């Protein structure tokens, strides 16, 4: 086990920033935290989880996938060496599910190459970031069990640093990392983890809703009630660490010339499932919302989810950022009749 003094961290980050495209929590112009390029003056350790998960580093909201020239095409794979510093366990779990889905039955070369080139440094939580955190329920936090290269535990003046991958060893060669007595550190970390777990109570309604969906016993009219107010902004999907859907379109600059693009998409948009005839198997917002939440809570793929509870990692962002309060927490309450 290693440790690093907090006031030694910035020089280390500076040094990592020479080797990686380093993303870290950065304070924006109005005091809000965003995950952005590490900038010393705006970097701050006193941060909450940013409003967007780090999935855009694996799949940007829009990206060029082919370049077309003279009627020929060239695949554009762009995977710079990247480090995500200070992401939370829920987001690390989200990246795991994201990457697994994108390579399960067919390998997506774009996200695969970026996943391979991305070092993940997790900052374990010793309590909820917001009142909507429920990672203890979804078994995806408040500390990462896998899917990280390094994990930092905040012990006041120092961080204890846990290694999660062979490639991470090299990162700890920086002289600011000191060896720690393993036994003592393990005890401290155990205490830290227990404190975090205690501080984020399990939301019983999640499991209850999952059971009800399995039995086909969701509260009647739940999708009608929620569907009526959904404005189809797509926000819950865009902020979701495990939502992977994308749309493909072409930017045509001229005859035989242009870009094939892909951009984030969502099953909440009617056009996502509308067929060429005009028929839509999910004809209204009720059925689309049902589909999205059943994908998270009922029809998730065991291989993607691994040892987590379901297709949701409990970050709570959909509850934070839905304009009409149709986040997972509200949905499971509604399904289970709470």
């Amino acid at each position, binding site marked *: 086990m290693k440790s690093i003094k907090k006031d030694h961290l910035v020089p280390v980050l500076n040094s990592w920033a020479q080797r990686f495209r380093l993303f870290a929590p950065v304070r924006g112009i109005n005091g809000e935290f965003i995950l952005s*390029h590490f900038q010393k003056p705006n970097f701050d350790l006193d941060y909450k989880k940013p409003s967007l998960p780090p999935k855009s580093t694996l799949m940007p909201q829009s990206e060029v996938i082919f370049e077309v020239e003279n009627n020929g095409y060239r695949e554009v794979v762009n995977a710079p060496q990247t480090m995500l510093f200070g992401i939370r366990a829920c987001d690390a779990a989200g990246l795991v599910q994201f990457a697994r889905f994108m390579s399960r039955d067919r390998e997506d070369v774009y996200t695969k190459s970026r996943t391979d080139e991305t070092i993940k440094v997790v900052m374990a939580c010793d309590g909820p970031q917001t009142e909507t955190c429920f990672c203890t329920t979804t078994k995806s936090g408040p500390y990462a069990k896998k899917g990280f290269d390094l994990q930092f535990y905040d012990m006041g003046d120092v961080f204890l640093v846990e290694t999660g991958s062979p490639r991470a060893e090299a990162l700890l060669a920086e002289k600011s990392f000191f060896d720690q007595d393993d036994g003592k550190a393990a005890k401290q970390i155990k205490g830290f983890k227990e404190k975090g777990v205690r501080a984020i109570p399990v939301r019983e309604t999640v499991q209850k809703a999952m059971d009800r969906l399995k039995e086909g016993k969701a509260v009647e009219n739940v999708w009608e009630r929620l569907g009526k107010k959904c404005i189809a*902004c797509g926000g819950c999907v865009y902020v979701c660490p495990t939502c992977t859907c994308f749309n493909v379109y072409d930017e045509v600059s001229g005859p035989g010339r242009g870009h094939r693009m892909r951009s984030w998409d969502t099953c909440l948009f009617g056009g996502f499932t509308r067929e060429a005839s005009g028929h839509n198997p999910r004809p209204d917002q009720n059925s689309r919302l049902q589909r999205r939440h059943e994908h998270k809570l009922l029809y998730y793929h065991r291989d993607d989810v691994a040892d987590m509870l379901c297709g949701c990692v409990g970050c709570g962002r959909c509850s934070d*950022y839905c304009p009409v309060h149709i986040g997972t927490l509200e949905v499971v309450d509604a399904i289970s009749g709470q």
Partner: protein
Amino acid sequence: MNKTISICPFCGCGCSFYLVTEGNRVIGIEPSPLHPMNKGMLCIKGWNSYEFVNSPKRLTSPLVRKDGHLVETGWDEALRTVSSKLKETQAAYGPGALAFLCSAKVTNEENFLMMKLARAAFKTNNVDHCARLCHSSSVAGLALTFGSGAMTNSILEFEDADLFLIAGTNTTAQHPLIGTRMINAVEKGAQLILMDPREIPLAQFAALHLRHNVGTDVAVLNGLMNIIIQEDLYDKEFVASRTEGFDQLKSVVSRYTPRVVENISGVSAGALEKAARMYAGAHKAMLVFAMGITQHTTGTDNVKSCANLAMLCGNIGRPSTGVNPLRGQNNVQGACDMGALPNVFSGYQSVADKGLRKKFEDAWKVENLDEKPGMTITDMMMAAQKGNIKAMYIMGENPALSDPDSSHIELALSNLDFLVVQDIFLSETAALADVVLPAASFAEKMGTYTSTERRVQLSHKAIDPPGSAKADWEIICAISSLSGYPMPYGSPAEIMSEVNSLTPSYGGITYPRLEKGFGLHWPCPKEDHPGTPILHKDKFTKGLGTFMPCEFRPLAEAPDEEYDFLLTTGRIYYQYHTGTMSRRVSVLEREAPQARIEIHPEDAKRQGIRNNDMVEVISRRGAMKARAEVSTIVPRKVIFTTFHFAEAPVNMLTNPAHDPICKIPELKGCAVKIRRSA
């Protein structure tokens, strides 16, 4: 990957987000989590507002017409041509032969400069913009009754209202993050009265839906006021201390008994009485309206009637009350504020006022500013067709698709000696121009925008414009300087300093203050003034509020035996105005790729029209085809479609008949016939 703070370029909500860029490309959007307007949220348009910026169809070089075709040229030739043509026209026909259109899409600084170019460099007040087509009646109606023609309250207040009276706004579609606040408030117990002929999504949340006949708003509003007065439910103290003209109001509205109103509007007497008692009984009632009220030949009367009702019940000057016109574009409020109107300088300072003219003459170092109000867009187009307007400079507008009776607009624009269009795309209007100037999009320049709640906000430059495109302010400066009136501004901040010094309501809205925080609500006269989220708190801007009772007047063109349907037009959630931007966003275009004509099932059956059939709609002015959407959203004998699609240009059909005061055309109702198309 960089992140630059910006303001959404679509509607007037004023949501803030970071533009995520990679190199010189915008690759995504990240909503600002702390901004009070959107708190980390956006609508579908906002989340996808980056894509059109990257479009390969962007204009990248100036174009000039040679042998009938637009061909690429350098800035030198383009600017010289514009400047010399404008100068020649001015010399040959006088300044009144020139017309300038500002834009509800560009920054305050750019609108200010365009209005300055018209007034100081070319000595004409012929300057206007598309607010003429959306809220000129709000500006006129509220200025006359309250003294200030803008939204009286602010958006956050929607969360705490007890009651909403929503007239002619499909809020969840056009101002989504205001619409969602209404839904949340209703779920917390607020009541919603909807006044709309169509069954829009908010109808599901309405305690009462008054589906009045199109164009009968004055009758319904008078009817409400009559009941409130008859039943003694009005706010006597407010009426006595804050208003004037109550007796006239009482005498006019007394003729609008529930029975009379029912005959005119189709709203049952019982529903009207219930609505009147609900509105009068609410402690904090917000009256909210948009195009359904404004786009009528009686638009100003409709707005005055809304103002009358709010004053009658004392719903002015307190939190979560007021009269709230929802402005449809990111900077339509700002363009009006900057004097992109024929009768006022920035801050609604009248051009007819000698003292105010002197102030601008001194600041601008010119003499003899035009003292006569100039022409509105409506008048400019008529004058162009008659040959009285000879040259027009259009910035960021698409009148060929947005204005009523398109055939007439095209004739008018084609009849000009010289047309210059400045835009980010080759719009339908730009395709008619003699010179096309490529402009920077919102992501490619710095500047301020004023949202519907009068919140002035700074947006930053994230990437460079494509090709040789330039920011609108840079282009205007160059043309002005070439035309003999130097505009040596080095930055938008310098322009804003001039706005600050000449515009009392913007006096304290400076760049250093806007750099941090979430903008400032005008009026904000001094550097230490906190801004004004709620207008007319202790007294109206004009002193006493004036009741201005109006008599009901019917639509200019009502259906008859031959043209037996009423066509009403509007917008949908997934597209935006003439589609210049939204139709270049793949997901929006996928959601709504074509125009649909809503028709009631009974009417469809009678006409032999099935869902998705191609139908033809014909008015006295033109015809269009689109696919039918058979739906009970529309009442019987009313059809609805949008103006987003150039393939189905509904404004070929609409009636240019306009409001006598503000000249807004009656886009919300004209007579048509409809038939199944082969």
